[in-house]
């Protein structure tokens, strides 16, 4: 059996049939909040159980518990607030107890939400507790200070999927869980990524895969920061890597549509919980997981796991690794006795620079097939 969903039950809040049709009809006369697709994908995540046990946006009790204790009110580990913010103007158009519609900016109704609570919150504390800083040069903090002054909590039910350019690569937890079972996998390691793969990533994945039945590569697809790899580039690069360098039945790749929060340690726990819901029993946590700039220590995202003995997914920690010319392969300080002058580090910045100038990184850093795939795009990076 793969992992137990967080909280013991996979949430499913997707309306179908007549009830869905009736709500779509009624939606025309209901108060509506319009939001960008990048935000609404988290409604889909709630409805399809990626964020189990959440059944909607957090009310103040859960929000405060998550902020200050890193646990939901029912004691389950949870580190990132999942909240719906509204402006003063929107606040005047809805009331507690209302059923409202969440729609795309184009007017497509995505979900019906019962407004259980409208509440205020402290943005300084949100930033300080979740991101450990109030510095607005941190992209997550900047976003918090741009949010509306009120939060709305309440259950959601999905009525339409958010337009998805990557539906071919999209699987929900009930699907991955059945897929893993069909493949005969009892242990599955999840790999979070927002990068095209270099040889270091492959080393980490294959090291982990040695000890489990299957590898679940689960790139985060959604709003990222400037200079990150574009989503389509990441997917194509991974397809190339899997095709040429992995046994066919040991790997599954599908996407995790959500935005990066860059909350470092807290986001590592959040990422692990989502992968647990997808069915993973293990989760790879590398150096500076979900970090940005120098806001977090290199291994803070690993250390935080010691606070959660009840997480229900086993973290696999990887520290420093490099290509060693003397060893003739990727190694780490525990496996390689050689000095720095024969070691090539996997610098993402260096690899990006080479690719930006149209240069193919050396095979010690990146598989040639993967580099070619990336370079086949006019601009592989987010502008």
């Amino acid at each position: 059996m793969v992992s137990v969903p967080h909280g013991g039950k996979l949430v499913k809040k997707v309306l179908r049939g007549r009830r869905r049709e009736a709500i779509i009809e009624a939606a025309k006369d209901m108060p509506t909040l319009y939001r960008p697709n990048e935000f609404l994908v988290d409604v889909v995540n709630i409805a399809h159980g990626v964020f189990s046990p959440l059944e909607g946006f957090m009310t103040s009790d859960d929000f405060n518990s998550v902020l200050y204790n890193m646990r939901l009110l029912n004691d389950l580990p949870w580190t990132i607030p999942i909240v719906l913010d509204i402006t003063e103007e929107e606040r005047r158009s809805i009331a507690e107890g209302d059923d409202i519609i969440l729609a795309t900016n184009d007017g497509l109704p995505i979900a019906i939400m019962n407004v259980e609570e409208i509440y205020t919150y402290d943005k300084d504390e949100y930033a300080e507790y979740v991101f450990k800083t109030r510095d607005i040069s941190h992209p997550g903090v900047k976003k918090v200070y741009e949010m509306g002054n009120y939060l709305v909590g309440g259950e959601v039910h999905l009525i339409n999927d958010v337009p998805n350019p990557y539906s071919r690569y999209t699987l929900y937890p009930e699907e991955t869980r059945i897929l893993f079972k069909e493949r005969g996998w009892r242990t599955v390691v999840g790999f979070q990524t927002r990068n095209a793969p270099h040889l270091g990533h492959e080393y980490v994945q294959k090291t982990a895969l040695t000890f489990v039945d299957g590898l679940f590569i689960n790139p985060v697809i959604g709003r990222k920061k400037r200079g990150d790899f574009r989503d389509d580039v990441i997917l194509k690069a991974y397809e190339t890597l899997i095709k040429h360098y992995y046994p066919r039945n040991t790997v599954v790749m599908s996407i995790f549509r959500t935005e990066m929060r860059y909350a470092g340690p807290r986001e590592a726990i959040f990422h692990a919980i989502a992968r647990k819901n997808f069915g993973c029993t293990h989760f790879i946590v590398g150096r500076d997981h979900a970090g940005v700039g120098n806001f977090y220590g290199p291994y803070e995202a690993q250390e935080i796991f010691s606070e959660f003995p009840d997480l229900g997914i086993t973290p696999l920690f990887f520290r420093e690794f490099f290509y060693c010319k003397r060893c003739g392969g990727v190694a780490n300080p525990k496996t390689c006795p050689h000095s720095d002058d024969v070691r090539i580090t996997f610098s993402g910045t260096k690899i990006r620079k080479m690719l930006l100038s149209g240069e193919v990184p050396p095979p010690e850093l990146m598989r040639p097939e993967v580099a070619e795939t990336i370079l086949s795009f006019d601009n592989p990076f987010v502008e």
Partner: protein
Amino acid sequence: MNGEEEKKKVERKHTTVSIPTSLFNRIKKLIEGTGFTSVSDYVTYVLREVVAMHEKEKFSEPFTSEDVERIKEKLRALGYLD
């Protein structure tokens, strides 16, 4: 917000559970020099681990055979299953 209100907001609700004094003393000695700052912290940590383990044992996938067939069909169409 004053300091007292701040403290109240951050604190979790707690209740009391009795354990033998001898066990309390053993734990107190055990956690000396560790990251645990109190016997309560230690007991909470251990209980969370044990409770999660027992919750896991009680779980079974809730899918019906219709669910499984529908999903397998989608997985085949997407190339995830043969």
